[in-house]
């Protein structure tokens, strides 16, 4: 993890990607889903921005909006200075290879009828024999870089395990030399022992190639490990943003505190009184995430928050910089919490 100082520099330099008040809505009228509702964040070159949150928080839609698989309803998506939200047709196509995506389900995202060489090389146009030869060399080079043998190039997806397929998915993303890779739950479907292989691969690729990642996952410990900075999302908004150390050691927003305390850690018998259980008190939230069709007024977390006051229903809290580089969208951030608040103010059930 980088220090606050480093993270600020990463964010202060010219960003690779800058999102400015991005909104992505689906549907119309009273059934309109506010999937992404005013997100502003930057990603620096070589930086990993983690996005965490539960289902329906908009993290996947945000990734797809950056990738232009969904078009933003409003806002600006500046990638290397160009606003992707404004580009259309061939002008968009020219910019697009710079951003690639790795999906959760490699089995579903790779064409079962294509050989590995075709899957990986598909994105590269090659006209004429020398170009095809160059492409084949590049495919072989990439497939070895992701830890697979070139013998696999003539095989079909069904011959591979989930971890191997994810390596193929990563190779396909890398062949066009992207500056930004969006990994959406890229290791969630994998067994734990294979998951760490893929995380090590992604880390090594970033160190070698200087690529930036947006690492989207519901798994908090994986996001902490992978990210320089982390954005916590709830119902379409980023509710807390900071370095991984800020978010995990000094969470400001009550939702982040609850989410962290809900994540079980491996407990062993070194804990007090020899019990393997209950090493840390839990904040157990009431209820489920409300529907993004009709989100609560004011602060969207207030319906489940143990600190909610009248002001929380009346006014939506802005995401504001509570301490250098550490942003929180809570009316009470900065007043109450400096320091780790994993002791619940009041346990709810």
């Amino acid at each position, binding site marked *: *993890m*980088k220090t606050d100082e480093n993270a600020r520099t990463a964010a202060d330099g010219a960003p690779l990607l800058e999102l400015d008040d991005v909104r992505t809505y689906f549907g119309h009228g009273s059934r309109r889903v506010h999937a992404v509702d005013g997100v502003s964040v930057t990603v620096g070159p070589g930086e*990993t921005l983690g996005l965490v949150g*539960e*289902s329906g928080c908009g993290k996947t839609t945000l990734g797809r909006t950056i990738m232009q698989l969904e078009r933003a309803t409003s806002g600006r998506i500046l990638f290397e200075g160009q606003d992707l939200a404004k580009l259309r047709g061939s002008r968009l196509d020219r910019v697009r290879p710079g951003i690639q995506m790795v999906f959760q389900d490699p089995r579903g995202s790779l064409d079962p009828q294509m050989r590995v060489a075709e899957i990986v090389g598909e994105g590269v146009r090659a006209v004429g024999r020398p170009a095809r030869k160059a492409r084949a060399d590049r495919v072989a080079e990439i497939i070895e870089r992701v830890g697979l043998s070139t013998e696999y190039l003539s095989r079909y997806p069904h011959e591979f*395990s*989930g*971890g*191997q397929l994810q390596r193929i998915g990563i190779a396909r993303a890398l062949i066009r030399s992207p500056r930004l890779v969006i990994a959406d739950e890229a290791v969630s479907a994998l*067994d*734990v*022992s*294979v*998951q*760490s*292989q893929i*995380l*090590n691969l992604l*880390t090594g690729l970033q*160190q070698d190639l200087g690529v930036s990642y947006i690492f989207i996952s*519901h798994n*908090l*410990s*994986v996001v*902490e*490990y*992978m*990210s*320089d900075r982390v954005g916590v999302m709830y119902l379409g908004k980023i509710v807390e943003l900071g370095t*991984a150390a800020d978010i995990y050691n000094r969470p400001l927003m009550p939702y982040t505190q*609850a*989410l962290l*305390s*809900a*994540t*079980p*850690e*491996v*407990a*062993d*018998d*070194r*804990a007090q009184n*020899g*019990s*393997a*259980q*209950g090493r840390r008190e*839990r904040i*157990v*939230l009431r*209820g*489920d*995430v409300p529907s993004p069709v009709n989100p609560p007024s004011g602060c969207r977390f207030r319906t*489940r928050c143990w600190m909610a006051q009248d002001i929380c229903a009346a006014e939506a809290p802005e995401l504001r910089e509570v301490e250098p580089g550490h942003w929180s969208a809570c009316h009470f951030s900065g007043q109450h919490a400096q320091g780790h608040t994993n002791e619940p103010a009041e346990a709810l*059930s």
Partner: protein
Amino acid sequence: MTHADRRLSAPGAQAPGAVVGAPPGGLLSVEDLRVHFTTKRGVVRAVDGISFDIQPGGRLGIVGESGSGKTITAMSIMRLLDPDGMVAGGSIWFRGRDLMRLGEKELRAVRGNDIGLIPQDPMTTLNPLVRVGQQISEALHAHQRIGRAAASARVVELLRQMGMPDPEAQAGAYPHQLSGGMRQRVLIAMALANEPELLVLDEPTTALDATVQAQILSLIRDVQDRTGSAILLISHDVAIISQMCTDVIVMYGGRIMERGATGQIMRDPKHPYTAGLIGSVPTGTRKGTPLTAIPGTVPDPSAMPAGCPFATRCDHVMDRCATAPPYSTLPDGRKIACWLHED
């Protein structure tokens, strides 16, 4: 009668429920259980000779990755294997009776009454056309003589205990009208309806969001404290097992690799597979520092190595590993199957 039942009532089998030899102590005792599946590629030994027991009120976890045989073990205890699976050997004693020798009728009296099952996916387990309250009261009527009004009152009481807001109204809801967390509460209520002595939970929170998972785990703890029923918790998540269970079994390739007190094993895993599994959890690892990764992938179940199933991925592999290691007991009481710990 399922395929497995037919195999089990083959000639030579005792009368259903007959006690052969002295039944082992404890609530549940699994002895040398072997489950085989017939597939196109040959016979798969999904569970290959595992033994363990649970005391009344005990909390045992089984942790393992896909293909480890953990779910098959749970389903064998419930005698709910798919038709192409068959118990090829071993016995499952529950309160002195061998479940493998019970007929379907006697089994039905055990399932849902003495042993409750909480499955992973509430949506495919609940009947989408029947109100949830009705489904819970069916579980009650199946095992007790209880009047309609008493059953409805009990349903509402159960839902209230599960922390469902407005239980009277929720009892009238259809499954699709409830969230994933609420559906899982309904299934727990159903499993608890007849106050079973053993609850088998198969990945009970895997389909749920983190904050909802925390609610359900806390509910399971409360239920266990209140009713004193034993739990057998199956999970791929080492952290959940470490928080919920006092004892743990680590499975790989249909076998038990290591078994013992959870706290001990989490602090000081002795089997290379257990060590790799715990080391794969990134919590507390600095960004940029490589994680402990177990090389390779889980072998195809139809082509498991002959000796130790983990041999193909193990850093400590030696010639002896071509022969399956025996179970030995370490001085601290844990059981382990690894040649590294054989003197």
